[in-house]
């Protein structure tokens, strides 16, 4: 009897707490109105283009260039953030130094500072007559108005992701693991590279993927510093805006659909990394 009751399919497990219907109803209604209908509208419009037309628009030379630039610069920026983010997290977790609290709080600045503000500030700094730009100019290095400028903006935007995913994992590291490695004769460098860093890999990869995904779609901070030269420093979100301003809705829809598809793919990768790391690292924990 009890078994049969448990086997019966139900939408939800019984509970004495009321309000399931109301809460789920509000959630689904709001989700449908704000997110699902608008996104389906985009996909529906995109499917209305027809396959041949869609492929022609999505793989137009300028579009492919813009997508390549978006993904390439986001990848480079995420790599920079992975390297420096792990160091920054390590320093914040392990060492004491004056102003540490402030630095820790400041890591979230890119989440709080509007992207347009970051964009004009970075452009002012890295322009040939700016503080940093004028230092680099004699060396023949130009950052602003080149793809390198895009990377700088995306490093800013993605900075918190790696730090904030790696930091809590570092805090959880058991000191005994390091002591065990030391007793077994590992020197400090070996302990870090063979024992500590492998354990941080899933968190680091998650942070990398989050920073990368954010960078691909970023618009506000990039458009000021990029120079926006077609085929050279024009990012995909900007090309969508340009096509919209030309009332070329078909092209804007096609580019957006490709970007949407690629970001879902990224989401899938992130989820896979996380479930893989749960399987691999949470055994016995």
């Amino acid at each position, binding site marked *: 009897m009890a078994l049969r009751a448990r086997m019966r399919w139900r939408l939800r497990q019984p509970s004495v707490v009321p309000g399931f219907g109301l809460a789920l109803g509000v959630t689904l209604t709001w989700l449908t109105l704000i997110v699902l209908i*608008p996104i389906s509208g985009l996909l529906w*419009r995109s499917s209305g283009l027809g396959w041949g037309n869609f492929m022609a628009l999505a793989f137009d030379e300028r579009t492919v260039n813009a997508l390549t630039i978006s993904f390439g610069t986001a990848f480079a920026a995420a790599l920079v953030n992975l390297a420096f983010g792990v160091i920054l997290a390590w320093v914040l977790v392990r*060492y004491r130094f*004056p102003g540490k609290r402030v*630095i820790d709080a400041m*890591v979230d600045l890119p989440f709080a500072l509007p992207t347009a*503000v970051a964009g004009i500030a970075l452009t002012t700094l890295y322009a040939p007559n700016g*503080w940093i730009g004028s230092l680099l100019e004699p060396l023949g290095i130009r950052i602003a108005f080149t793809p390198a400028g895009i990377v700088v903006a995306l490093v800013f935007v993605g900075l918190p992701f790696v730090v904030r995913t790696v930091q809590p994992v570092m805090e959880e590291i058991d000191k005994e693991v390091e002591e065990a490695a030391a007793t077994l004769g590992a020197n400090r460098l070996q302990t870090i590279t063979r024992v500590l860093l492998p354990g941080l890999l899933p968190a680091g990869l998650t942070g990398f993927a989050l920073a990368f995904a954010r960078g691909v779609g970023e618009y506000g901070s990039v458009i000021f510093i990029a120079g926006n030269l077609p085929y050279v420093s024009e990012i995909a979100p900007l090309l969508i*805006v340009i096509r919209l301003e030309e009332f070329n809705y078909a092209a804007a829809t096609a580019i957006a659909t490709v970007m949407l598809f690629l970001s879902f793919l990224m*989401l899938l990768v992130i989820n896979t990394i996380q479930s893989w790391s749960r399987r691999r690292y949470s055994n016995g924990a």
Partner: protein
Amino acid sequence: MALDTGSASNTTLPNLVKAATSETRLARATLIAVALGFVGLFLLLPLATVFIEAFRKGADEFLSALGDPETFSAILLTLTVAGIAVPLNLAFGVAAAWAIAKFEFKGKAFLTTLIDLPFSVSPVISGLVFVLLFGANNALGPILQSYGVQILFAVPGLVLATVFVTFPFVARELIPLMQEQGTSDEEAALSLGATGWQTFWHVTLPNIKWGLLYGVLLCNARAMGEFGAVSVVSGHIRGETNTMPLQVEILYNEYNFVAAFAVAALLALLALVTLILKTALELRYSHEIAASRSH
């Protein structure tokens, strides 16, 4: 500089072991220098630039830039849009967290993924979907227009785009928190004869108030600072549909740098206040805020 030696017990151990469980002084100093250099170059310097540029020609110029009527209407519009969008997402966030955290039901993981969806969509696409939905060449736009309802290039469009972009913030903060708290408090209240609403107002809400505030804080910061999505639906009508970030762009592109940075400084101030409140909440109420710090 007081550098941590790794752990307190190290000082009593022989030198060999000490070297093996903590880095050398030189390595520590180098790592700290690299980290601080990175933070300084990418975070502190841009932030300082905003304020330096805003006050480059003195406080009078700064104030007169803010006194401009177009800028003033941009400030008002930003407050209006955030004032509508944030409460909407607050109500949604509480409802979603109630359903997801307090009950076990089929498709819960899928629903959670859908709620997170707006985070993985480019801001420009977030605006584009509403242009496609309400644009002049679509079904809905002309129908609404015939009833005198203007969505695009008007406040409703700005609110919709902002709600879309800030959709997950409150829910994401509350779900892990309420999951951690479980349902035993609510069950106790209910068994003592409280009604559902009484339980919510007197038991659940006090339990989640700091987490709620935390979510609202982040939601508001994003709502006021959103650029890409709002830019696409705004139409850039001066003095009418320009929010503060859009006003920054317009002033900057007109080479009116002092005015652009003056508005930017206000937004940067908002970001700083957000960070300070956020840090204070984390320090004081760390147990009453969801454990996850990344968002």
